[in-house]
Every structure is written in structure tokens, then in C-alpha cells.
């Protein structure tokens, strides 16, 4: 997992999977990297080929944390399988999903 701070944005990338086995660790590492000056977390999921409901739970936890700071989490370039779970669980209504 790669973490970069770009101004007010924290960019997290390089996550191969977000599943029940690694979601807790991911959530804790991401939380630790979020600084008070960050108003947005950009999660680059372009190489993430698998996300399950536990992984989704970690994303929701991060979004809740950012919401308490008037910020939010943005999901970048999800692969089709990840897009599918976001839409099935209606999380595409909660997260801003950006593609480029």
C-alpha cells in the first residue's frame, strides 16, 4: 500500500485486495496516515481486483472519519468487479467515484 499526501488530499494506492483478511490492517494504516489538514482521501483502486463486504466496511469507516472532519473519501478508477460490489450495496450513492 502506498500513501502520499498532496496538499489537502491523502492519496492511497497500490492495494491488490481489500478482504476480510486484510481490511482491519488497511483501515488502521489509513487512519494513522490521515492528518488534520487532509480534507479528502483519494483511494486509487485501479489495481484492486477484489473487495468483499469487510473491505467495504473499512472504506465506510474511513468515510465516516472524514465526514466528522467535514471531508470525504473519493474512489478512483475501480475495476469492474469492485464497481459491481459498490453498486450492489448502493455504496456508489455514498462515495464519489471518479474515473480518468
Amino acid at each position, binding site marked *: 500500500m502506498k500513501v502520499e499526501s498532496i496538499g489537502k488530499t491523502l492519496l492511497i494506492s497500490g492495494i491488490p*485486495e481489500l*478482504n*476480510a*483478511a486484510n481490511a482491519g490492517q488497511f483501515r488502521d494504516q489509513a487512519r494513522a496516515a490521515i492528518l488534520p489538514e487532509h480534507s479528502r482521501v483519494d483511494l486509487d483502486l485501479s489495481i484492486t481486483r*477484489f473487495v*468483499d*463486504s*469487510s473491505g*467495504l*466496511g*473499512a472504506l*465506510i*469507516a474511513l468515510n*465516516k472519519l472524514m465526514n466528522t472532519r467535514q471531508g470525504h473519501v473519493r474512489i478512483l478508477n475501480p475495476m*469492474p*468487479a469492485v*464497481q*459491481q*460490489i*459498490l*453498486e*450492489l*450495496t*448502493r*455504496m*456508489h*450513492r*455514498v462515495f*464519489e*467515484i*471518479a*474515473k480518468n
Partner: protein
Amino acid sequence: MTASVQSIPGRGLRMEVRCDLEAVREATRQLRVFLGAEGLSEVEQSSWELACMEAVTNAVEHVLPGCEGILLRLGVLAFEDEIEVVISDRTAGFDWPDAPELPESDSESGRGVFLITQLTDEACYLRGREENRLVMRRRRDARRPVATVESLEQQVRDLDATLATMTEELAACYESLTAIFRFTEDIKRGQYGNELAAKWLSELRPVCGADWCVLRLVAKDQRTLITVGSTGPGVVLPPLDLDSPLSGPVATEVRALKVGTDIWFDEASPLEPLDPLVQMLNTDVGLCHPIFYQGQPFGVLSAGRSSARPGLTAGQINVLHTFADFLSIQIRNLRLQEEYVRGQLVSRELQIAERIQRSLLPEALPKTPGYGLAGFSQNANQVGGDFFDAIALADGSMLLVMADVMGKGVPAAMFAAILRSTLRARPDLAAWPQELMMWLNQSLYPDLDRVEMFVTVQVVYFDPQSGLCRIASAGHCPALLATPPGNISSIDIGGPPVGVVPGCDYRDEIFSLDAGALLLLYTDGVTDVQSADGEAFGEERLKEFLRTAVAEGRDAEQACALLSATLTRFRGSRPAFDDVTVLVLGRSAAMAGTSEPLGNP
């Protein structure tokens, strides 16, 4: 990681898996490889991988104490037209819901069973004494043998379908971009208003795949949400009160603005029957998206559609959000532009009014031997309707005028100009203030009445030969006469302001301006001047000022300058809020009058 795998190509797969999360994840990866070899599509493989991961994770996380060492069993059977997966676990088991629902959107867990039912055609949970079994089945997509010409052709068709979807998405982006360019052009042409907002919404509606769109903005009073555009023909959406508490029944649009996040409505959480949006066509599913500008509530963009069509995609929601952001910036810019233009017009209007008012005041006051005449008019921050004049008549006499037009700006300045020319048009009536005032009222009443304005006027005819004055007043504050050594009389003649009572009568009064006396005509701005503590200067202070001035033998010019300085000192740092206008007529102490009766000048 997996304890044992037994694969029968083209038939089935059986795995025994250690009860830990890493091991079960590895097992679901192998399941995917098996299904890939069986010719299932990427979508089918992903669906089974996710459904099985949800099931085995549940089995690991809820394993009964003491059973951690027992292996989980995962079996896959690939039939001609269907895939069946059976997972056995050693948990206490749970009641499989008839219709699994999603938890609240901020819940971090509780989506596993919902996902399994969405990803499979059939899921059956059998609870037993020793173990529980979850049986999942899903029909196979059109069956494709591996690595045959047909399967390759199918892959090409799949790729074509993906390409078509991407093209469609690209077209939607293109449509959005084109729409945004069109909106920008509309703005450049200076078109703006509710019609334009409705036009933009009608462009947005197909781009974001909605059946209808409604845009509301926060009104300038910040207390209501008003409709600026709607694609629903004939639908009238009443303004919404933003002050209503969230605890009571609140329109979804107001709620979205108050909580600051999108609020969705669908079959599970439909719009309330009294919600104004129920008037729109097809409200099966949709959302209210709040718009903020620099952190301040700005408006709400809502869209909805029938559930007969697929739900809004992430791409369509993105278009809606982008459009809302774009719109808020554009509308804000337009509002600022309008305010700027309006500000320019107002300041131009004030410039004109100031110019008119300056041109009305006499450039130089007439001079009469043995008498002095001085005056000033100070404007408050806005142009007002104060006005004074001193008209020298052919026989050496003089007409003094003091007036205050109700109101400010161009209308007040215009009426002051009309008053000035009306008075100057009848020098024959100058010696008869009563008749002059009646004629003035008769001439100006229709115009003043039409615009609901009035003017207080005071006219003084003054004959320097006799030192006698004849005064008439139309609702103006009393003139003050100061005679040595320090007597003050207030000359208060009743009479309604000009423009209030049609054809009304006025009366006049004669008095003598004795040697050393001062006559002060003023507007109520003088007595209304306020100190820093908010105390008014008042008539008593004005009388006291005059008493001192006359006792000290001040002439008109000195008295005028001293009064100006006194008022400035009294006001201190407090800004003036009304015009201050003063006219002083003084008779030198050395000159004695003949005191012949007035009336036959």
C-alpha cells in the same frame, strides 16, 4: 494454505480448508481458477468468488469455541447449465432471512447475506446439530467451451460489448461536456432566469438518465428554498420553509440541505405522501443532492425515475453532481454580476441626483444693504430632498424658501427642481405667501399624490425697506426669530405639507426683523443631529445657540458658520443620517426700520 483440494476437471472441486481468514481467501481464489477452467465468464467468476468469500468469512468469524481446528468443507459442482456450491461450517448458525436487506449506509458490516442473495439465483441455509450447510446455485451464462473457435468468438463478442459500454459512457461524458459548453454560451449571451434554468434541466435530464429534475435555490432571505427550474410541465412546487425543525415532517429537499448529504428515495424508503416532489412523474427512485457554495447552503438538485428502468449508475450520479457544482458557480457569478450592475446603476442615479441638487442651490445669495443673508446645506450619505432658495425681486424685496421633499435619491431631487421652478414662475405672488402656498399646493398636488410623496415648505417674503416679513408654512418646522438682547420667538404657522390635502387653505403671518435680529429658517435635520451618545440636538439647544449669537451681536454669516461648527462638534464621530439645511437672515444692529405696513408692496 488450503488443506486439501480435489478437482475433477469438468465435474467438480472439493476443498477442506483451515479455519482462518488467509486460508479461506486462498480457497476462494482456487475456486475462481476452477470456474475459469470450466469456461465461466469473468463476471461469473467474480460473482462466485465474492459470494463464497462472504460465506466462508462468516464461517470463520463465528466458529464455535473448540471447533477452530476442524476443517471447513467447500464443494463445487459444475453442471451443464448451473453451478452449485456447498459450504459446511461449525458455527452456532443463524436464521437465514426471507428477504435480506441492506443495513444503514454508514454501517460497517451486515452486507454478507445480502450480497450472497444478489450474486446467486438460490441460497439455502440448512442448520444441523453438528454442522450447517449453505447451498448456493446460479445458472450459468451461455455455456462456452474453453479454447474453441466459438469461445474465442464469444470473447470477441464480450469485448465488443465492453467496448459498446465504454463508448456509451464516453458518449454520456461527451453529452455532459457539450451541455456544459451550451450553458456557458447561454451565460455569455446574458440569458439568465428561470426559463434558462428549466432549459438546462431539460438538457441534464436525459444525460443523467432521469425522468425528471428539479432545481431549487436558497432565497436571498436565506429562509426559503424556491424553485428556479423543473422539467415537470404544469407542476407548481411551493417554496419550502428552511426554518422547519428536522424533528417534524420536513420535505426531503430541505432535509438533504440540512444534513448536507444526498438523500435517496426508493421503494424501501419512499417519499412521504405530503412531500412536494410526489407531484413529479415517476418517483420510484431518485435523490436530492444538496449544493453548497463556499460552505454555505446554496440549493438542491433533485432527480428521479421509474423503477421499471435500471437504477442510476455511478457515472450518471457523477454527471448530476458535476452539473450541480457547475450550476452553483455559474448562478453565483451571475448573481454577483447582477449585484454589480445594480450597484453601478444606483451609484449613477445618486450622481445624477447630487448634480440636480447642487444645481438647485443658489450660487450666490442676494445682497441687501443693512442686512446679511447666509445659508448652507450639508448632505448625509445619501442624496436627500432638502432645498433652499433666495429670490431677489425687482423692487428690492426678497423671497426666502426652505423646503424638505420627503424621500431621497432622484425622485426627491426631481421634485425639489420642480418646486424651485414653480416658485420662480410666479414672482407676482411672492409678496403674498399665503396665496403662493395655495398655488404651489394646487400645482404640485396631482403629481405628488400620484407618487405618494409630499413636501414641507416655508416661504418668507421680506421687504428690506420696512424690515417686515410675511411668512407662510406648509408643515415645515417653525422659523426662529432672535432679537437683542436675547429674546427668541418660534413662528409656528399651521398648515399641511404640500401634496397632502388638495385645494387646502394656508395662512400667513407678519413680523418685524428689528435691528440686530436674526431669523433662522432650517430643516428638521438640524434638530435631529445626534451626538455620539444618541442624544438629539433638539429645538432648545438651537434656541440657546441663537440667544447667545444675538447677544454677542453676530451677523448672519457668523451665526451660520458658528451653527455649522456647533453641529459638527455635537455630532462628534457619529455619521450624519439626515441632510442639514440652514438659512439665516440678519439685520445689522446700526440700521433702524421704517416699519410701514406690508400688504401693498
